[in-house]
């Protein structure tokens, strides 16, 4: 425990390091009795959840007014290259996100993991807690060395979690693709840090903050960072691993990857573009904004046509990451024109959306886990009607679905509202071209938000409503109490941020103060959100809740009082058609059909339609991405061909290799002379 002894006083930072160490310890304890589920799942995972709460608490402490950034040097690492850690408002916010959503996921996982699902539970526990600890360390790191070590640990531990069920070939393939993309991205980040140190060869972030880069090198560092962190966060066209890897993992791991790990990518970009680089030209912002908006729309369109519930959620994650990047891009754009208030507003929207997404996306991924345990199905085409057999999960999933669809008065609406407000202020950008183009981004945000509603009606409606599409679904049972508790925790987060958006705005105000130097306007009271001026814009989640509930209650009471509440149960009417089978409901393909029709060119579709006289008609449609066939496969072929050319040099004869060495020496001699 020399980590602790290196620090003298107990501060939030010390506390965090202890907590991270205890996560690692909990992981190691899993190996003591790796196959005893009572020990691993019922004891260690709840302990991990408690540690997560502690991390959230320490993160929250760093967001209180008057907190000064703390940093420290650990007695770990290489000689002459110790690990530096630092806790400031930005890292504190992401630790709060990590801890508070992570606690819910861990509690759920305590009820979720069972025997005989690929990897032994004890090993899973180790990988799981190393994953959590490495994410916390990425956020705490204050030098490129620790950052990259933690970053790679995060990538590797999550890779092992993705391939938990390594006996299935598709999952191994998905895991390999994930590992490859993670490393391509890590290369970008490594190169970015290489540029950022600016010739000082100091790898601490302090040195990078102080380094003076020429505009060209600063741009190179930014683009490399955008590439690297974008690949981790799932920015189009670097997103291809995401819809493969997230569904392959067990549901609590999918929840961590979508809800938490993507946010670590967002954190990385924020750290580099706002903290390490101080200013930049406007095209940085425009690039990020454009990529973000494109990603958002792309993700939403593809989510609408998915037939696997976890793939649908993975594409929805791409959409949300796009919205977050759009917010960051808008903030960067405003920073370059020194419009601080607007930059603060856009950044606040991006940060709150990150937080919201961590909650509702984790919630929905965990819901798919419960559904899979209860039914053994993850294909939307074989589910349906679960609201009758799993009332708890259905009710909590409804909250998550409404929140992610961006509907008031829940939390998803808050961040979308802020983002739209930021876009509405952009005609004031002092640039003759940008002030016309950028406001139109609001149209794309609105379209994406509306599509998200479509996707969520499909998700919820096909899984939980209607008739069960398979006989076996009638035996589905509701989730256990630990799972319900985890889900309720996350749902509560969605509701609370929806009710008290101003509190969230105040909290992220600490970060905008650190990064932009200002905060958005405070409301007159915690119930009101008035980021610009009170006459221009205002929103009150609490009063909207009160209003809606009051009207619902009053309507209910009045209808019952004045008339009656009599109910007669009958078979469904359905225009008088008596023979109804569950097959006649919209399938998930059917529900996505208008989107396929409308956005046809976006998809790569292969259709097999039956002939009208076919006695056993079969209909098949395969929807794929163009990126895969027009970017990645040609790229892979190019690499393959280049590699084959290079093999010519490698004949396998020792004498040829000696000849190469000899010729190299001759060439060097000639060059020196």
């Amino acid at each position: 425990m020399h980590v602790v002894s290196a620090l003298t006083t107990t501060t939030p930072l010390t506390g965090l390091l202890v907590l991270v160490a205890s996560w690692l310890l909990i992981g190691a304890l899993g190996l003591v009795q790796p196959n005893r589920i009572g020990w691993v799942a019922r004891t260690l995972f709840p302990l991990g959840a408690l540690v997560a709460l502690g991390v959230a608490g320490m993160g929250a402490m760093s967001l209180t007014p008057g907190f000064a950034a703390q940093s420290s040097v650990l007695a770990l690492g290489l000689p002459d290259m110790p690990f530096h850690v630092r806790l400031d408002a930005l890292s504190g916010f992401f630790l709060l996100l990590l801890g508070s959503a992570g606690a819910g996921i861990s509690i759920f996982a305590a009820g979720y993991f069972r025997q005989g699902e690929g990897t032994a539970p004890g090993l899973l526990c180790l990988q799981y807690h190393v994953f959590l600890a490495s994410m916390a360390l990425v956020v705490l790191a204050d030098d490129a060395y620790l950052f990259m070590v933690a970053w790679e640990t995060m990538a590797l531990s999550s890779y092992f979690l993705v391939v938990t069920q390594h006996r299935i070939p598709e999952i191994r393939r998905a895991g390999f693709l994930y590992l490859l993309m993670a490393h391509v991205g890590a290369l970008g980040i490594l190169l970015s840090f290489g540029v950022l140190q600016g010739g000082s060869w100091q790898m601490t972030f302090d040195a990078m903050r102080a380094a003076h880069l020429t505009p060209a090198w600063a741009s190179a560092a930014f683009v490399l960072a955008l590439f690297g962190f974008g690949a981790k966060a799932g920015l189009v066209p670097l997103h291809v691993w995401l819809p493969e890897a997230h569904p392959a993992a067990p549901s609590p791991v999918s929840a961590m990857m979508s809800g938490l790990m993507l946010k670590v990518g967002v954190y990385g970009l924020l750290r580099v573009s706002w903290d390490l680089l101080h200013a930049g030209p406007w095209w940085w912002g425009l690039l990020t904004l454009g990529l973000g908006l494109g990603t958002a729309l792309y993700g939403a369109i593809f989510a609408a046509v998915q037939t696997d519930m976890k793939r649908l959620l993975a594409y929805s994650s791409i959409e949300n990451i796009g919205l977050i990047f759009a917010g960051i891009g808008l903030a960067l754009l405003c920073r370059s024109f020194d419009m601080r208030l607007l930059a603060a507003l856009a950044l606040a929207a991006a940060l709150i959306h990150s937080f919201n997404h961590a909650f509702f996306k984790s919630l929905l991924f965990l819901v798919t886990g419960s559904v899979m345990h209860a039914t053994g199905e993850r294909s939307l085409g074989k589910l349906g009607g679960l609201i009758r057999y799993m009332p708890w999960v259905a009710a909590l999933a409804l909250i998550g679905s409404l929140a992610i669809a961006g509907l008031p008065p829940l939390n998803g609406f808050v961040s979308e509202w802020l983002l739209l407000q930021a876009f509405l202020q952009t005609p004031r950008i002092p640039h003759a071209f940008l002030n016309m183009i950028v406001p139109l981004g609001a149209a794309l945000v609105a379209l994406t938000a509306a599509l998200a509603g479509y996707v969520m009606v499909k998700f919820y409606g096909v899984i939980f409503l209607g008739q069960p599409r398979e006989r076996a679904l009638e035996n589905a049972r509701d989730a256990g109490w630990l799972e319900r508790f985890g889900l309720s925790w996350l749902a509560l987060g969605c509701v609370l941020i929806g009710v008290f958006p101003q509190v969230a705005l105040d909290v992220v105000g600490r970060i905008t103060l650190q990064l932009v130097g200002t905060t958005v306007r405070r409301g007159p009271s915690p119930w009101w959100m008035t980021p610009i001026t009170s006459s221009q814009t205002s929103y009150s989640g609490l009063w909207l809740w009160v209003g809606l509930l009051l009207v619902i209650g009053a309507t209910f009471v009045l209808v019952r009082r004045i008339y009656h509440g009599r109910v007669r149960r009958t078979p469904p009417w359905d225009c008088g058609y008596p023979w109804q089978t569950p097959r006649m409901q919209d399938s998930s393909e059917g529900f996505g059909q208008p989107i396929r029709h409308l956005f046809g060119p976006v998809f790569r579709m292969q259709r097999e339609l039956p002939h009208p006289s076919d006695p056993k008609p079969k209909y098949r449609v395969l929807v794929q991405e163009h990126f895969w066939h027009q970017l990645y496969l040609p790229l892979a072929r190019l690499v393959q061909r280049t590699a084959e050319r290079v093999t010519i040099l490698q004949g396998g004869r020792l004498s040829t290799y000696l000849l190469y060495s000899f010729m190299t020496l001759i060439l060097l001699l000639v060059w020196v002379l």
Partner: protein
Amino acid sequence: MTAVAYVWQVGECLLAIALAPLFAGWVGQCRAWLQNRSAPPLWQPYLILRKLFHKDAALATDASWLFRLAPYVVFSTMVVAAAIIPSVTTDLPLARVADAIALVGVFATGRVFISLAAMDIGTAFGSMGARREMMVGFLAEPALLMVLFSAFMTHGSTALPEMVEGLLSQPHIVLHPSLFFSGVAFVMVLLAENARLPVDNPSTHLELTMIHEAMILEYSARHLALLEWASWLKLFNYACIGFALFMPWGIALHGASAGLLALAIAALLAKLVVAGAALALFETLSAKLRLFRAPEFLTMAFLFAVLGLLVYLLLGA
């Protein structure tokens, strides 16, 4: 913010709830006249409501709690929307709770709930209606938002009462070219969102063409009454948004006297009479689009709305 303002706030809300069926009745009457049918009485919607509220609710065997909750939620979203929209006065204390963006969100909440409820029973028509409704909605919703954004650009506020005051405070009538495009887009959105021709036919029961009717097929009695009332309220609300954005004359401003408020109600009634007749005329003259053409209609509405925004940004007017 005085107690009087709150009284008017509640009064305006109740006025909307009470007038909405009347407006629907007026549109129905105009349609009947234009189509050479003998018209039902103006108060026919009230009779329908009374009949439905008195009946026993016939509920499908498999209906879940969501199915029974949805009519109340949908009705409430429309009532809350009516509270936000300045139809009679701009002195609305509750309008600050939700601005125009939140208003679109409230409409969307209603739409999502009715679509989910339609899928609950698991009949073929229900899920078909839900899918179509969401298809119409995901294009109409951003179009409406863009219309409101154009209005925001011209008036500098996303709060509807502020927009109205901004428009009314101008000394003479200013013609904004951007508002022309927005106006066209808004009318198209109004038709699509309220299940009117040419996107949907409110009087159809032809199974394969219906959207709204398909969703509420399984409802009966008080639940159906609430949903019908909600859809009339929605039409009323959209009409009032249109008045507020494009012809706000007559709406009472902050601190208006009782006389002016009475005048505002009279102006609202006059506008509703004209708008209802115009809607009926339009519906009589136009034919229903094929369903696959509906997205084209809506895309056009969306593009018109974006064009309105772009025109404003280019011309500054």
